[in-house]
């Protein structure tokens, strides 16, 4: 009897689940990573993704991507992602691990990131023995920025900033991170692996899995350094670059385990969570009644109407632009609202342009930037010209000037143009013009109680004479608004 056996195959190696199915990076490039052909980052990503799959930790893994070529790691890994400032990944991982002890924190860094600008962060994270995993991809050069010398560049290796090759007199010796960190007491596992051939790649896969596993067991700080090819900057083919890793790079950076205390290490107890905010006063021994508990204020705010006020204040430095915004925000805070105050000014202390963004809301604030203000306070003409067009239709422009420039007029906004500086001068001091304008603004917004304004004034203005003057100025502003605008 004859029969035909149709061969049945099963998939044994395919894209790890920890990767996204397609990468939402750019419209066209959803299939492939942004790495150059033959780049070691892809291999290390894959090893890490496989380790995450095998350990079953995808749902609680947070990857910290660095600055460097691997900055886009968050497009590829289907895990929690945070992108840290240059070199700061271990510090970010520390904070996240301490606040979320059940998460697996992986700090993924290149050699420019880890050994140069982030040298202090990695050293101290290792010295504290943080229970995090660091994947350190070392290609001996700054690749993303075009091939400048890195602390890890080999002696004699040419880079754009060492065109004659790295010299020990000028740039010092290549930094051996594994050897350096292995002198510390705290780390439990440090190994250097390479991507130089099949055998090395297999070992790198095992090492990365171990480093992640150590963390899931709670053992402490693990770091794996991966000698990784950069065919583009090294100006080699992918295959030659691989050979160069094992033929040349490995001589300066010997592979091997530099520290392994995993057998004797006991699971570290996670850091105690921070005490709740409500206990803060007790801990700090604050008994004063002046500071009322924030919870109570939240309740007051809950009873109130919905407020979402966007204000832009602009003028020259010295006109009290920032103080105006600060008092407004401080008063909002006192009234139990969510507030943000974002100053924006040049290096000049006087006469430079200055402006600030203030938001006061009964809900959480998504961004402190005020792109479309409800109210613009323009303390001079340049500020009006700069921001007038941005005011939301139906909003208000308070302008400090005798006449409103005709070409700035808009039909869809309300305008209150008065010589506020002169008005302030009449009641005592030209410098109180900001408070007169604030008074008018408070009437327009109609969201903050007088008591909160008083509290903010008392907190921010030190001299009694000025508090008294500012109170009069605020009152004047309120009256001016009603005189000029009733019926608008």
């Amino acid at each position, binding site marked *: 009897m004859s029969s035909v056996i149709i061969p049945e195959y099963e998939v*044994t190696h395919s894209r790890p689940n920890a990767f996204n199915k397609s990468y939402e990076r750019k419209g066209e490039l959803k299939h492939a990573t942004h790495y150059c052909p033959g780049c*070691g980052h892809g291999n290390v990503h894959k090893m890490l993704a496989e380790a995450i799959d095998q350990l079953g930790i995808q749902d609680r893994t947070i990857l910290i991507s660095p600055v460097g070529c691997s900055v886009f790691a968050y497009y590829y890994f289907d895990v929690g992602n945070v992108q840290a400032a240059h070199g700061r990944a271990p510090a970010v991982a520390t904070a996240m691990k301490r606040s979320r002890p059940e998460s697996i924190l992986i700090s993924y860094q290149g050699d420019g990131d880890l050994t140069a600008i982030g040298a202090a962060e990695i050293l101290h994270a290792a010295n504290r023995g943080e229970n995090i995993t660091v994947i350190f991809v070392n290609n001996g050069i700054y690749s993303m920025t075009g091939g400048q010398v890195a602390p890890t560049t080999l002696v004699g290796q040419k880079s754009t900033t060492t065109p004659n090759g790295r010299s020990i007199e000028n740039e010092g010796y290549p930094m051996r991170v594994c050897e350096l960190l292995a002198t510390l007491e705290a780390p439990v596992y440090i190994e250097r692996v390479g991507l130089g051939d099949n055998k090395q790649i297999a070992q790198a896969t095992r090492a990365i899995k171990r480093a992640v596993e150590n963390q899931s067991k709670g053992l402490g700080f693990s770091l794996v350094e991966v000698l990784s090819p950069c065919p583009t900057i090294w100006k080699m083919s992918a295959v030659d670059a691989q050979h160069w890793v094992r033929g040349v790079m490995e001589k300066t950076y010997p592979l091997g385990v530099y520290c392994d205390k995993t057998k004797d290490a006991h699971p570290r107890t996670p850091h105690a969570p921070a005490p709740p905010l409500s206990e803060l006063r007790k801990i700090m021994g604050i008994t004063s009644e002046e500071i009322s508990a924030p919870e109570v204020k939240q309740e007051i705010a809950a009873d109130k109407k919905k407020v979402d006020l966007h204000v832009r204040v602009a003028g020259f430095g010295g006109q009290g632009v920032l103080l105006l915004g600060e008092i407004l925000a401080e008063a909002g805070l006192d009234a139990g609202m969510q507030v943000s105050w974002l100053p924006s000014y040049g290096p000049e202390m006087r006469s430079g342009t200055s402006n600030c963004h203030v938001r006061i809301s009964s809900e959480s604030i998504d961004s402190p930037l005020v792109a479309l203000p409800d109210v613009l306070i323009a303390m001079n003409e340049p500020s009006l010209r700069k921001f007038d067009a941005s005011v939301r239709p139906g909003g208000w422009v308070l302008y400090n000037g005798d006449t409103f420039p005709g070409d700035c007029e808009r039909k869809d906004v309300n305008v209150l143009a008065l010589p506020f500086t002169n008005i302030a001068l009449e009641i005592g001091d030209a410098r109180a013009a900001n408070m007169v304008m604030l008074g008018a603004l408070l009437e327009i917004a109609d969201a903050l109680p007088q008591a909160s304004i008083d509290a903010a004034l008392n907190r921010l203005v030190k001299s009694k004479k000025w508090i008294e003057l500012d109170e009069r100025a605020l009152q004047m502003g309120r009256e001016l608004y009603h005189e000029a605008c009733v019926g608008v």
Partner: protein
Amino acid sequence: MDATAVKHDRGKMCVDENECKGCGLCMEACPPKVIAMSDHLNHYGYKTAEYCGEGCTGCGICFMVCPEPGAITVMRLKAKAAAAVSGSGLEGANA
């Protein structure tokens, strides 16, 4: 025709043309040397690796050395099917 006379490869590999950038690392790494570079360009303008069609052992080394997450997929002959291939001595290899 006697089915037992048919010899199947232990493995198969395939390359996703959209993902491959043609770096050639898989060709270099493949022990039986059954991967070659295609002579046409993909959507992004890269030449891509492709399986020659026979001789794959399913070892998975090409997958391991490939820098792209999903460019290479490796398959192995199922143990049952492999056992049916008499005298091929593959039972141990698939265990």
